[in-house]
């Protein structure tokens, strides 16, 4: 395969990966952040302790995390059809990607929020702050460095998950590597794809680290 032949394939696949990762990152945050907050505040000694709710949420998160992504992708096909209207294609892949990454991100959010000192929360309570104020103005801002670090790890995981999206016609760099690099013995393309993936992950991680470090400086 010549460079001229590879180039459009690579561009298209990179675009598909970017599309899948960006959309699923957005939905992962929208789903995983509240879930992580809920895990912390419903816990014993939390702002809104509820043993039952905490157990249920913990169970949901654990189920979500224990399914291998390739299985999850197939298992949620009915849900994908319901939401996107189709079960194949790049957008269809966003549903399982989100469902796979949100519980993972929720756990990282939980860990980051637990790093916020108990006395910091109690100080806010002593000042008469209500639950929502404490969540919005104490817990989340205080944990922001950890949240960014967690998000970075999640995005990297999403890039890796998205490589499996070829199974449901999602396309992307992983799919390209399998179809051309592996099944058609295009070793050069395989190597180039791997390099592109490494570069993307490297960029994401570096950017995340820089932001997290800047936020942690204070």
């Amino acid at each position, binding site marked *: 395969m010549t460079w001229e032949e590879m180039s459009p394939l690579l561009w298209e696949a990179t675009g598909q990966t970017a599309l899948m990762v960006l959309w699923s990152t957005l939905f992962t945050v929208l789903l995983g952040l509240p879930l992580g907050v809920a895990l912390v505040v419903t816990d014993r000694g939390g702002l809104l302790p509820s043993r039952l709710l905490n157990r249920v949420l913990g169970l949901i998160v654990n189920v979500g995390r224990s399914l291998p992504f390739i299985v999850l992708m197939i298992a949620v096909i009915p849900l994908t059809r319901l939401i996107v209207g189709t079960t194949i294609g790049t957008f269809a892949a966003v549903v399982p990607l989100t469902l796979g990454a949100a519980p993972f991100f929720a756990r990282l959010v939980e860990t980051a929020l637990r790093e916020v000192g108990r*006395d*910091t929360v*109690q100080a806010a309570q*002593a*000042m*008469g702050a209500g639950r929502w*104020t404490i969540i919005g103005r104490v817990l989340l801002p*205080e944990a922001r460095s950890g949240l960014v670090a967690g998000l970075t790890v999640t995005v990297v995981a999403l890039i890796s998950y998205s490589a499996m999206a070829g199974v449901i016609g999602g396309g992307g760099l992983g799919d390209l590597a399998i179809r051309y690099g592996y099944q058609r013995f295009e070793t050069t393309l395989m190597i180039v794809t791997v390099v592109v993936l490494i570069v993307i992950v490297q960029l994401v991680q570096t950017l995340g680290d820089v932001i997290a470090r800047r936020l942690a*400086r204070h």
Partner: protein
Amino acid sequence: MIDVSGLRKVYQDRGRRVEALKGVDLHVREGEIFGVLGQSGAGKSTLLRCVNLLERPTSGTVSVAGQELTALGEAELRRARQRIGMIHQHFALLSSRTVAGNVAFPLEVMGVGRAERSARVAELLELVGLADKAGAYPAQLSGGQKQRVGIARALAGRPSVLLSDEATSALDPGTTQSILALLKSLNRELGLTILLITHEMHVVKGICDSVAVMRDGLIEESGGITELIARPGSRLAAELFPLPAPEAGAVTITFTGRADEPVVSEVVRKFDVDVSILGGALEEVAGVSAGRLRVRITGDERDAALGYLAARDLLVEVAP
């Protein structure tokens, strides 16, 4: 100003039952600095956190500034807390906010508008001597500066009462003194009532008007600090003036505010006794000198000499 009565707090943890407060009464008068002294585990921290209901007492009532907090609903309690300042051992500042942002936080909670907020923040930082640090982050400050931010933050809502949870325990001696001096001046200038808990005698000695000694979930003794020292068998006096265990018949004389009177030479002159000094300690307490002298008195007129001392309004205790 603060009235606590019959306060009990029981923790249930996995079948284990811990009684942290076993029926505590506390009365803090308006404008005074009241210290609760005790070892860790005595229950003083639980007591303090029951005063603004960070901990719900198992039974008993708490009133602050005439308002019974234990009878309030959640929203009312939040409003009442805005009028009770609190400072913490480890400062509990928001690391993601600047000094000014930290002081502004309680004002935001109270719903104070932006313009008024920044004016008040500037005023508060001026008050605690940190006007030049408004834009700094807590991580860039020393411990003493952090506690000053904590104090400014606690005063934001113009509270009538300040609760201090071991506020100087994490500070070095010099910084401790400057923070205590600041608290004392706030007490004097703003008429701020301060309830502080501490395990450090020098905090009590330095700024408290009244003190309660806590042990094992109960208050052992409480009252005005000079009055307490003059009370027979006072634990406060024993801790303040550490003397070795007395030999049989040894006489311990405790005096407050009259350290310069020549009582020993008077006794020797007036009575046929010999006095030998076994030990003694002198402290500046609540602005007056107080001390304790341990002597051995021998001679025929020993009883008359003891009677003379007791009649001089000194606390005279004879070891059995």
